[in-house]
């Protein structure tokens, strides 16, 4: 450039004006933020204030502040009540099954997809397996009922044709409740879950693979020594996140698969809150149940993160 650089013009924003002036000058920005802020205060923070009714006997005509305090009464009722053991066990079993089957599935599929060299094949499979993520739980539940129904369900019939014996009513029997929930979760979420791991896999340095090939490492050893360490940070983050949601069994999925016949295995915290709160109107007790679950969830996420850090991983925060 031929011309001498002119002295820089003072930027519009500097020197920093006093806050009051800056607020006035950006009045429009504050107006714009108001509706959103109102949303958060009304629909996110007001309910948090509403959590106080977990420690009260809430009566609608007395309101939040007028209802009498009862301390930990509702929590004691939950912990000593007849429903607690069943709900806790059901929730924990579903959580365990999720950890065992639903959590690893996307990792396996992502690794397998990553091994595919044929990009059309890879992208077609991806396009197909992402679809169910966008379908509602209502659709998934309805599909399950249609496909597994004892009368005309094609899957039920196919199993019957192979196994023989008496036809099984899969959607009504207690014994089949958990397998069906796991199958639904696998069908709906595995494909979508691969995205995180595929992103991590794409980030692995390809030079490492070349170097390993030069050293004579086969695909299995490349996987073991390069791919797996490459996705480990993503894996740890997902494990910590999943553990925080262990007790979130997903209200819609469970509720839609709950029938009068499978209550003993289907009732979990989320659906129990709905039943005792909305159906029976026990607002305070149901709020206490929800709060109990939420607190355990937060503890789990801190606990797992602490554990991950102790094991030398980076963790979530």
């Amino acid at each position, binding site marked *: 450039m031929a011309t001498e650089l002119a002295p820089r013009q003072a930027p519009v924003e500097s020197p920093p004006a006093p806050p009051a002036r800056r*607020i006035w000058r950006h009045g429009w920005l504050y107006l714009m933020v108001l509706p959103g802020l109102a949303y958060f205060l009304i629909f996110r923070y007001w309910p948090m204030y509403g959590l106080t009714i977990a420690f009260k006997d809430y009566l609608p005509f007395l309101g939040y502040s007028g209802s009498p305090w009862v301390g930990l009464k509702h929590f004691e009722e939950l912990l000593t009540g007849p429903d607690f053991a069943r709900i806790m066990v059901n929730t924990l079993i579903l959580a365990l099954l999720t950890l065992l089957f639903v959590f690893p599935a996307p990792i396996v599929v992502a690794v397998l997809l990553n091994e595919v060299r044929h990009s059309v094949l890879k992208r077609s499979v991806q396009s197909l397996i992402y679809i169910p993520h966008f379908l*509602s739980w209502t659709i998934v539940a309805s599909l399950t009922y249609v496909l597994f129904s004892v009368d005309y369900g094609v899957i039920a019939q196919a199993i019957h044709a192979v196994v023989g014996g008496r036809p099984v009513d899969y959607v009504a029997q207690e014994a089949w409740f958990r397998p069906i929930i796991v199958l639904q979760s696998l069908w709906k979420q595995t494909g979508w879950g691969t995205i995180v791991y595929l992103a991590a896999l794409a980030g692995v340095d390809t030079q490492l693979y070349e170097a390993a090939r030069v050293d004579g490492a086969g695909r299995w050893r490349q996987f073991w020594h390069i791919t797996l360490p490459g996705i480990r940070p993503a894996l740890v983050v997902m494990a910590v996140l999943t553990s925080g949601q262990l007790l979130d069994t997903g209200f819609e999925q469970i509720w839609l698969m709950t029938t009068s016949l499978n209550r003993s295995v289907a009732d979990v915290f989320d659906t129990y809150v709905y039943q005792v709160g909305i159906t029976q109107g026990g607002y305070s007790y149901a709020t206490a149940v929800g709060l109990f679950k939420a607190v355990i969830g937060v503890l789990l996420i801190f606990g797992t993160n602490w554990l991950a850090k102790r094991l030398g991983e980076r963790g979530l925060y």
Partner: protein
Amino acid sequence: MGRGSKVFDVLNAVFLLGLGAITVLPLLYVLAGSFASESEIESRHFFLWPEKFVTTTYDYIFGTDTFLRALLTTVAVTAVGTLIQVALTLTMAYPLSKSYLPGRTLALNLVIFTLVFSGGMIPTYLVVRDLGLLDSYWALVLPLAINPFYLIIVKTFFQALPEALEEAARIDGAGDLTVFLRIVLPLSKPVIATFSLFYAVAIWNDYTSPLLYLSDSHKWTLQMLVRQLTAPDADSANVLESLQGYAFPEQGVKFAVIVIATVPILLFYPFLQKHFAKGVLIGSVKE
């Protein structure tokens, strides 16, 4: 490459194609079944093409007021709701992207905290009730009006826009509002498209909100109707009013409502995929 490696490639391809097939076959079967006669659904096993292509099921359900009302309601709530939610998200995200605004950090922390903790089902229900929104369509839109994740992603996107463009407009005398409407929004079309789709899918698919907040069966959305027609103890002939001179296609109705509730999502799916594949949703949350 060794022979073992070749064998692995083939097996892998077969496995993955099988996975893709398991994913879509149920949907294709239900689609085929919705165009088959009652007797065909009952007599034939798995099929992907009806022997005799009939539209009696669709004729039936489109002939009932219950179904048409649910469909129109859902379309209207989804359209209006998406508009409101996207507008709220954009207008809140833009000021939050300006680090020089006093109070911005506080507002941002207020948003982030809701990612970790929420009041839960019952307290939220009570707020909706106290606001007099029970049995109102607003209850399907307002309680979920802003998804904090989306808000933060949009905010991060705004932050990444070149400041020079906005500066140039300001030197020309444009105020904050003009900059937002004339410069920022036109640059954000892909992001707006993406989150419109995500919000729309969420409203369309929502079952919990209508279950919690709508007790009047005349106000049911499509998802509620699908549920009422396919539940194992469903009395589907009574959910849809019976039509004079038609036999009630009990199985076919289940197939057809599933198809109708799914097809709009599948129509938008290519657009959804185009955007999320670019990683719009991943990795952009951290500042």
